[in-house]
């Protein structure tokens, strides 16, 4: 036995264990501090620092002092500072590698405090932030442009309808004139009338032969019938000519309107339809406005994996391969399910008596395995008297206990100071709100992957710089001047659909103002353009109508001819 067992080794083993425990106890504060800083930094994407951590194994409690969480978007600012955080650890769950905290107290909370050193991480996570931002989903802002060609070019490129209409009317007049001429030709001509007169004279000759008188009586009847037939044809033709004249005059009147129709058509071709007036605010300021809610959106997406459950619904994608030296924890059914990480209650408070500023909040049932805990995560935070945000309320419920998570959050900010708020950063169209007071109301809900966010922002007591003289031209200048006169503005940002590719809508009462300005500008530009087009069209069509008038005048001559023939025939009939 002595050859196999090294009896002093047992003592050495316990000595080593004791040494490890002693070293652990000596360094536990530092180990805890470093571990917490590293983990939180990874989650936040910016430096998270602690002044000190104190772990008491006897009391099973932890106290953290001087927590500073840098803002990933503004590395020289801490988005959160806490003077003191204290919590008790439940010992039993630790044996199961579970960190359960019954109660945590966070005191001395401050928001948006300046930092001495940058809190940005080396290499940064900017790309990640852009990829998960809402503003990145919107197209680049565009200012409506009215680009009109030269009037001569516009008319030259257009197939005018007036010449074709004139040509068609000419053909019509010709056809109808020919037809009438043919009808006139079929009426009694000079020869026929001479024959009638001869027949009439023969009838008037004195003759006492009874047989001859009987024959004359028949001739009179025949001649009267011929006269009446011709007179009827003459009357019908006269009516036809009159009708044709009316018809062609109407046609001519229509054709004479064609140049104006050509002008209208060309103008409409280069005019913008009313559709583009929809959602003007989104087109022009969309990216910047969506950027206002980006931070909250990114936070939600960043925290998604840590809130447990799928929270997404649908099929989960295959897990990515683990980092080197880490592996993946596979979970099995538990007889007594419990989350690995749990804070049953967190109370948060901060205050500044001098400035009467106060922040208080509570969070319940924060855990990483909602399926293993019977309660959803709930939170409520309220504050007042803070410089930048005089009053705010945030509350929410994150329920991931089922396969498809259901989350709901509401946020209200009152009296938020809006300073140097950029609406448009485009060099040709810079718009910044110098100062104003904003009221913000946001309602967020999510069911699985489907999200629905609505943020109402009202900014009052606006102060906006007047545009520099000659700083912008045309539309941009008109818009800048209109925007600079605003004293209040409201925006509604809507985000709906799949969390990765949501549809973003931005509505604002600014739409109407921008629309009116643009309509005015457009009307001014269009009026000048139309006038020039009219001139160009007139040049091309002015000589087309004179021949038509002449040809229509020809019908008048035909009518005189027919009338003359009618008079002659009427005279002959009277003499009969």
């Amino acid at each position, binding site marked *: 036995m002595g050859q196999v067992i090294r009896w002093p080794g047992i003592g050495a083993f316990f000595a080593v264990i004791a040494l490890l425990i002693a070293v652990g106890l000596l360094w536990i504060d530092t180990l805890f501090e470093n571990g917490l800083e590293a983990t939180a930094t990874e989650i936040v994407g910016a430096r998270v620092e602690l002044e000190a951590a104190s772990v008491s194994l006897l009391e099973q409690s932890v106290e953290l002092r001087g927590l500073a969480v840098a803002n990933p978007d503004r590395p020289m600012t801490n988005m959160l500072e806490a003077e003191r955080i204290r919590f008790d650890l439940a010992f039993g769950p630790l044996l*199961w590698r579970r960190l359960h905290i019954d109660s945590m107290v966070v005191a001395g909370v401050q928001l948006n405090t300046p930092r001495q050193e940058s809190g940005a991480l080396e290499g940064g996570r900017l790309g990640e932030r852009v990829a998960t931002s809402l503003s990145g989903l919107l197209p680049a802002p565009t200012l409506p442009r009215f680009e009109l060609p030269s009037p001569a070019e516009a008319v030259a490129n257009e197939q005018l309808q007036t010449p074709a209409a004139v040509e068609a009317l000419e053909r019509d007049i010709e056809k109808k004139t020919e037809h009438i001429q043919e009808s006139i030709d079929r009426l009694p001509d000079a020869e026929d009338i001479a024959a009638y007169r001869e027949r009439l004279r023969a009838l008037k000759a004195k003759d006492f032969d009874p047989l001859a008188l009987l024959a004359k009586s028949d001739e009179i009847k025949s001649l009267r019938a011929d006269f009446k037939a011709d007179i009827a044809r003459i009357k019908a033709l006269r009516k036809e000519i009159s009708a044709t004249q009316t018809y062609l005059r109407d046609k001519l009147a229509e054709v004479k309107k064609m140049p104006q129709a050509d002008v209208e058509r060309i103008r409409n071709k280069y005019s913008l339809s009313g559709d583009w007036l929809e959602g003007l605010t989104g087109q022009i300021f969309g990216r910047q406005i969506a950027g206002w809610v980006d931070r909250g959106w990114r936070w939600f997406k960043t925290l998604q994996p840590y809130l447990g459950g799928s929270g997404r619904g649908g099929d989960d994608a295959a897990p990515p391969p683990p980092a080197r030296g880490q592996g993946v924890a596979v979970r099995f059914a538990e007889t007594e399910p419990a989350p690995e990480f749990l804070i049953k209650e967190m109370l948060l408070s901060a205050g500044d008596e001098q400035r009467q500023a106060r922040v208080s909040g509570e969070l319940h049932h924060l855990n990483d395995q909602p399926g293993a805990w019977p309660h959803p995560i709930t939170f409520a935070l309220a504050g007042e008297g803070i410089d930048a945000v005089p009053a705010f309320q945030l509350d929410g419920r994150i329920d991931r206990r089922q396969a498809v998570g259901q989350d709901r959050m509401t946020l209200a900010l009152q009296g938020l100071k809006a300073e140097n708020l950029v609406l448009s950063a485009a060099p040709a169209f810079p718009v910044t709100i110098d100062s104003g007071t904003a009221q913000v109301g946001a309602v967020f809900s999510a069911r699985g992957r489907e999200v629905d966010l609505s943020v109402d922002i009202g900014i009052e007591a606006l102060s906006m710089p007047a545009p520099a003289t000659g700083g912008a031209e045309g539309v941009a200048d008109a818009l800048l001047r209109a925007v600079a006169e605003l004293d209040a503005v409201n925006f509604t940002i809507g985000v709906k659909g799949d969390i990765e590719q949501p549809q973003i809508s931005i509505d604002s009462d600014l739409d109407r103002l921008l629309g009116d300005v643009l309509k005015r500008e457009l009307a001014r530009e269009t009026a000048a353009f139309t006038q020039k087009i009219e001139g160009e069209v007139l040049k091309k069509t002015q000589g087309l109508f004179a021949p038509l008038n002449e040809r229509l005048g020809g019908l008048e001559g035909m009518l005189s001819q027919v009338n003359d023939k009618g008079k002659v025939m009427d005279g002959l009939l009277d003499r009969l």
Partner: protein
Amino acid sequence: MLRLLVKLLKVLNAEDNPAQIALAVCLAAILGLTPLLSLHNLLILFLVLVLRVNISAFLLFALVFSGIAYLLDPLFHRLGHSLLTAEGLQGMWTLLYNTAAGRLSEFNNTLTLGSLVFAVALSVPLFFAAKTGVDRYRARLLPWVEKTHLVRVLKASRFYRLYTQTGWE
């Protein structure tokens, strides 16, 4: 490092039982290939100290296997994952998962289980291979090594004096 090299030479050239060296190599494989801060490594530490194994060999080979472990990470992960998701083993894993010891051992981590199973399985052939290796070294290579210029220089140096004066085993 120099001291460790001295230890190695001393271990290999000492008259220790080759089985003791081989067992140290096996235990080093388990400690080196698996995550250091694992519950089972307490048992390994206990065995190393209580059993008459060569501690220098153990320390040296623990370092060597730690380096190898880094290269074999993906293999361990796959092996662990396939074992933890194997249908026939679900009952056993579930039972173990519902014990405090099971949780503390982190057996449900793919890397921990995969590397442990691999190291334990490797330790059996490794024991015999290491034992044979030490035997052959002593029989064939030791006389040649002692005659080499390097060893003669070393023997004449302070390093060798350190070597002859130092010894844990």
